[in-house]
């Protein structure tokens, strides 16, 4: 479904991605783990078209998307939940959801799509008229995921959904991600620092170090891998 080959991305003179190859099959949950500054978010932003790859190819459903502007990529069916949630804090929860829907048929099916989101995260329905910024961190993350789902994506890119969120809510969010994948048949590409949780959830995983993919395998294999245990799993997924 998504095929990334030899992608290099620069910020000015600094090279963030050094020829990354990643493949995500339809219906899978694939995770990308790595430490701070490895280039995980850059890869997601490059897929979304916010950052441009200087070389390499990105194919989505056999179509080249590396040179498309971000809004066209969203229209093709790739939605991103950006790092740090980036919800519109001074707009209401409903307006946030409506903005997510603006890519899909200009929000024609808002009511039915919104209902799916409320089924996923019931708390959002009670907060519709509240400003986004008044939600708790976990609720904001739910809103960010819900907002991305409003565009009816075929593939959802998630950037560190567990960042800065209470452990109880992290579990809830990971359950929701699994539901989105199993029930809504949305392919998931998940970037995480919480490697243990991510690998437990994922069908397959990649490890990114300094802009290079150093390891790949099924989630279970990577969990058992000695190097990964030493580098990312010591302390067992940070509570």
């Amino acid at each position, binding site marked *: 479904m998504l095929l990334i080959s030899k992608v290099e991305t620069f910020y000015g003179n600094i090279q963030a991605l050094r020829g990354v190859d990643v493949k995500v099959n339809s219906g899978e949950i694939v995770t990308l783990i790595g430490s701070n500054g490895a280039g995980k978010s850059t890869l997601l*932003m490059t897929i*979304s*078209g*916010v950052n441009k790859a200087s070389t390499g190819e990105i194919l989505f459903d056999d179509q080249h998307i590396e040179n498309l*502007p*971000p*809004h066209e*990529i*969203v*229209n093709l069916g790739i*939605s*991103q939940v*950006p790092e740090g949630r*980036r*919800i*519109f*804090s*001074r*707009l209401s929860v409903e*307006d946030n959801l*409506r*903005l*997510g829907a*603006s*890519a899909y048929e*200009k*929000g024609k099916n808002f009511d039915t799509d919104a209902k799916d989101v409320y089924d996923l995260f019931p708390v959002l329905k009670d907060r519709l008229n509240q*400003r986004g*910024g*008044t939600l708790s961190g976990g609720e904001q993350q739910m809103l960010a995921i819900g*907002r*991305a789902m409003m*565009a009816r994506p075929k593939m959802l890119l998630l950037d560190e959904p567990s960042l800065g969120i209470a452990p109880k809510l992290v579990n809830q969010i990971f359950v929701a991600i699994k539901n989105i994948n199993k029930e809504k048949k949305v392919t998931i590409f998940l970037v995480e620092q919480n490697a243990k949780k991510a690998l437990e959830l994922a069908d397959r995983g990649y490890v990114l170090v300094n802009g290079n993919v150093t390891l790949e395998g099924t989630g279970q294999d990577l969990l058992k891998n000695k190097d990964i245990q030493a580098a990312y799993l010591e302390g067992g997924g940070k509570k």
Partner: protein
Amino acid sequence: MRKNFLYLSIKDSLFTGLIALALFGPIVGLRTVAKNEVLVVSPKWFIVLVIVIVCALGRFLTNLYIYNRDQKFGIQSTIGKSITNFLDTKGTQIALSAIIFSVIFPFLPFTDRYLMDIAIMMLTYIMLGWGLNIVIGLAGLLDLGYVAFYAVGAYSYALFAIHFGWSFWICLPIAGIFAAMFGVLLGFPVLRLRGDYLAIVTLAFGEMIRILLLNWYQLTKGPDGLTGIPRPSFFGLPFKSFPDEGEQTFHTFFGLEYSPMQRIIFLYYLILVLALITNLFTIKIRRLPIGRAWEALREDEIACKSLGVNPRNTKLTAFAIGAMFGGFAGSFFATRQAFISPESFTFIESAIIVAIVVLGGMGSQTGVVLATVFLIGLIEVFRDFESYRMIAFGGAMVLIMIFRPRGILATRKPTITLQKKEATK
């Protein structure tokens, strides 16, 4: 702790006094006077001393009573909260009564020509403020050259009306379209800019338009300005005291006595309707996808991109629509004055409009009205004391910034506010 605070406040005030001395010493204190055809410096140290003391004392008092969170006299919070609460709860009623008041205003017993002129001027600024509020308040693009669109509207109205003799109702939309085109023209090069960089470029754009008007003599008559701009007619009925043979005028058609006030009242209602249309448009568009996209863009551009909002189109439409309303206001200005020159479109106009939007509380429609009445009213009150006008204007701004740092009516309520620490108790 308390003593330490007092000590710090005094130190801070003395420092403020020093800055004031450094600033006002040379500017105010050293005055050159011509004496026997030679320039002689005549020092005015007393005035400087007064200014320095006022600055230091003002700083000391604001430190003590406004920025000091521990003390009981919470002037800032109590006044602010009561105003905001009042307007929040009674918002619709207040807006309705304001509209009713504006409608009956021309027929109130105390209304005279002078008050009508001020009211028309205020409504023009309110309309400009509402137009600019689309660009600054909703889309979050700081535009310091808004007067350019006002000028484009005024000049395109004047040129079409003079050369082709088209009526007001035809020229008005044309002027709006022209202004909108200039909005797009400005929008394209500044798509990638934000914040202060954007402000500088828009500032330059405003000056460029003014200089262009000043120098393109063949078209604009440069500094001489355009004269003889046709007055608007009441749907074809002109306002004239002595009609030509067989001509119907406003007063003959309605069987009234001729009075120059008829035209003034008509102009008043014209700008009232134009301003209300601007307001209604803004309120409606906020509920539409495009308006929502503007506000989202103000909040977070990257999030917008990742959601599939096209930032280019969103910014350009904000510039274009904001400019269009500026153009409408410009047409009105041209037809009301019957004479325009580049003199009317200097940077100070942009500055006043931006001040109205910012002091009103960015994004707040009612705030624009309050700020206009406050600022323009103040300028009018001080008309007789010409030299103190700018001091009053500046002082008013300082006061608003001290007491209501987010504008008179802040719709952008902060998501996190500094409160007394509870955890340490």
